């Protein structure tokens, strides 16, 4: 446990990626199996301990501390594991070495009641640094700035094996990854994906700025719509058909209508959209289907979804990822008109002869349609490589909408922003007929887009302008105007203001503006164009 705790602290405070990676490499070289595999799975978010959820940790904390003091502390610290680690009444602590693999095994096999007692016993024996590491381990979400990609790069460097090879076999292995280490150390064969419905890492696009787009040689690129849905991968293998999200999560059970077994085997890359290929629905409609583990039969009929296919990675058992996009597109078109001729699979069209003026026009048209959020540019000769490969695929999103809104309420944030007031409810003006005056109506919640420096200033503003408290929420003087960027505005029956903004984030803090200069709800309604 001490080794793991030291690693987490080193990673957390390491200022640069390269330093973090060096710490990981050192750990990979020195740690023993199965501890190192479990540690990596915790870092990459692939470790799951059933039954130990944040709720349980909170219950344990309530048992040992005054609940009100705990809640106030949690509100300030913004991270459950850290709050419990810090507030835990310390007993005399001697250094005992507990293996993380032993802890994980006990917890995975325990009933909830037993897990709770076991954790409580462990916390009593550990110093604060290890309590934090333990609670991070069991609750997940480590927030030490290590991505799954970084962990794979560290493995690649430690064993001098191409990172692509590691990426490819990753979906085949489970924590603590013994097959992986056995292969990397030459003790076993490389794990094989043949015949298994597993996720293949996706190729991603670079965002293009307004100046970068002018430097593109359009003749070697193919243009497509950037659909406003969610990116998915359809994998068909040996009577098994699965749908994976962009991050590799298996979301098949949410979409039974798409997962009927197929004769054909292979892997398709595409977008999940609401409606049918002939009548595409909006993102708002799609949202009705997302995060529903088991949709009802009524839901399936009223809110159909389909796959807009744009690439193919495997055709039958053939891996065609190293072929050009042009070649893959040919295969994709052929399959969609034969083996994959289904009502729930569409073919994403290629926009003809891209040039700057057409792209601009298409991009602007996007908003009106509401179904696309920009255009894609893909190099015709590009192979399909995992990750964001330089110069191959680009996305060009339309410019966001903006509005000046007034800060109404603030709440302390979590994670990186913990202990600062960083979550804001923002309002726009509207006429209140009962009061016969203009009032500020909440229209958006935003908690990103500001710099660390701006965050500190916002935090100070809140602390000096509190007028009321509702639990963790602080109402502030209505004097601060902020410029907010958002992707679109939709009518919403769930919001009192009648509108909902999509992905609102800070663009600028307008210390220079007065509250009465902020936008009104009707200004926002005017931005909806259907």
């Amino acid at each position: 446990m001490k080794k793991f705790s030291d690693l987490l602290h080193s990673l957390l405070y390491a200022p640069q990626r390269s330093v973090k990676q060096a710490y990981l490499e050192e750990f990979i070289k020195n740690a023993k199996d199965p501890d190192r595999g479990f540690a990596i799975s915790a870092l990459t978010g692939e470790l799951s301990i059933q039954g130990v959820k944040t709720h349980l940790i909170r219950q344990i904390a309530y048992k040992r501390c005054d609940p009100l003091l705990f809640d106030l502390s949690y509100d300030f610290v913004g991270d459950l594991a850290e709050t419990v680690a810090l507030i835990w009444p310390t007993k005399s602590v001697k250094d005992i070495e507990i293996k993380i693999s032993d802890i994980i095994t006990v917890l995975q096999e325990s009933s909830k009641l037993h897990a709770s007692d076991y954790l409580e016993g462990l916390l009593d024996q550990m110093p604060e640094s290890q309590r934090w590491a333990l609670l991070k381990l069991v609750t997940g979400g480590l927030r030490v700035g290590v991505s799954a990609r970084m962990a794979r790069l560290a493995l690649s460097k430690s064993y001098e094996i191409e990172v692509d090879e590691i990426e490819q076999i990753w979906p085949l292995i489970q924590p603590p990854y013994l097959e992986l280490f056995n292969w990397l150390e030459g003790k076993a064969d490389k794990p094989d994906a043949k015949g298994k419905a597993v996720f293949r890492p996706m190729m991603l696009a670079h965002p293009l700025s307004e100046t970068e787009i002018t430097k593109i040689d359009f003749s070697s690129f193919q243009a497509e719509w950037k659909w406003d849905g969610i990116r998915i991968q359809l994998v068909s293998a040996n009577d098994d058909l699965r749908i994976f999200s962009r991050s590799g999560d298996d979301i098949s059970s949410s979409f039974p209508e798409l997962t009927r077994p197929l004769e054909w085997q292979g892997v398709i890359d595409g977008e999940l959209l609401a409606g049918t290929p002939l009548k595409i629905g909006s993102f708002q409609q799609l949202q009705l289907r997302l995060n529903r583990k088991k949709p009802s039969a009524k839901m399936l009929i009223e809110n159909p979804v389909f796959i807009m296919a744009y690439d193919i990675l495997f055709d039958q058992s053939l891996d065609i990822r190293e072929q050009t996009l042009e070649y893959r597109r040919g295969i994709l078109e052929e399959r969609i008109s034969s083996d994959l001729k289904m009502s729930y699979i569409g073919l994403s069209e290629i926009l003809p002869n891209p040039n700057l003026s057409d792209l601009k026009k298409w991009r602007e048209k996007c908003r009106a349609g509401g179904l696309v959020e920009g255009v894609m540019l893909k190099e015709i000769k590009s192979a399909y490589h995992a990750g964001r490969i330089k110069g191959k695929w680009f996305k060009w999103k339309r410019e966001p909408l903006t509005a000046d809104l007034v800060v109404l309420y603030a709440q302390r944030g979590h994670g990186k922003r913990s202990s600062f007031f960083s979550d804001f409810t923002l309002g726009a003006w509207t006429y209140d007929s009962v009061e016969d005056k203009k009032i500020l109506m909440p229209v958006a919640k935003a908690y990103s887009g500001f710099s660390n420096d701006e965050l500190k200033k916002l935090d100070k503003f809140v602390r000096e302008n509190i007028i009321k408290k509702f639990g963790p929420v602080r109402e502030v003087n209505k004097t601060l105007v902020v410029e907010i960027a958002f992707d679109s505005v939709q009518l919403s029956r769930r919001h009192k203001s009648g509108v909902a903004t999509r992905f609102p984030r800070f663009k600028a803090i307008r210390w220079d503006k007065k509250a009465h200069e902020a936008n009104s709800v009707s200004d926002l309604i005017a931005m909806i164009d259907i």
Partner: protein
Amino acid sequence: MVNTSWLKISKPGLYVLPAKAHIDPIRAVDTAIITHGHSDHARPGHQHVIATKQTIAIMSARYGENFANQKTALTYNNKFTLGEVEVKLIPAGHVLGSAQIVLKYENTKIIAAGDYKRVLDPTCVPFQVEQCDVFITEATFGLPVFSHPNPDEEINKLIQVRHLFPERSIAVLAYSLGKAQRLIALLRAAGYDETIFIHGALKKLCELYQSFGIQLGNLQTIPLDKIENHNSSLANKFIIAPPSAIGTKWAQRLPDPLVVSASGWMQVRQRAKQGGVELPLIISDHADWNDILRTIQEVKATQVWITHGREDALIHACRQMGLDAKALSLIGYEDETE
């Protein structure tokens, strides 16, 4: 019967009616009693300032000799009558010259503790416990998550990191009054006797500490134009600088600086990380949660007033101890000076 009607909250801060004096006023007033020299408590522009001689010296160093028309320098525990009130300053253990203000009027004794800590600090006189009816406390670290470790152990981490990265300079960020001098004194106490380098902004206050007999050893100021780019003679050396120096040209010229920050806030990991800190040291000039509670019990007050900080938790804990507690919610006192 405890009577507190003579101590009011006014716009500039706490106001002692029968003494016609404010305590740590945040705007210019006629008569100000100042607890300590941090700039949010000791502001310029008052007609008459009453404080310890160290605090007066600190204010002179910051604002010039003529920062007030009249200055009354008191020594600890010497009684002084102001209007109808008996005033006494007693040590608060926060920084050099820091004082609790003991006020006696009619039959009620109120102590405004200002900022204080209970952990021993080689650069100032330790906190003095004095019984009172009303104890006015800060609550900067007024949550049970704040439990400050032994500063000697934290200083050890700083000494260790030097061996880990011999080619890097070690930039230690510390508030320029109090924290910086305490860190230097702690390093000396841990046996480090080489020259310690300091940012120009610390020079005056370090000299002031030395003039009051605080041993800081050999210090050398490094002005911007004296650092050649990435001067390797600063490798493996401690350089103490105020937090605002980071990100400036001055800091960019240090050889591969390892950023250390010493503050009670360093206990919250994500908050520490946010400042780009590579080594956080939990060294605080404020009382932690347990020390605030212990102090409240020791002074045997029946009422606890809380000036600023995290008051909700402290009010709850006081009420559980059967004490009257209320928040004054004074503004203008910053968390950042810690």
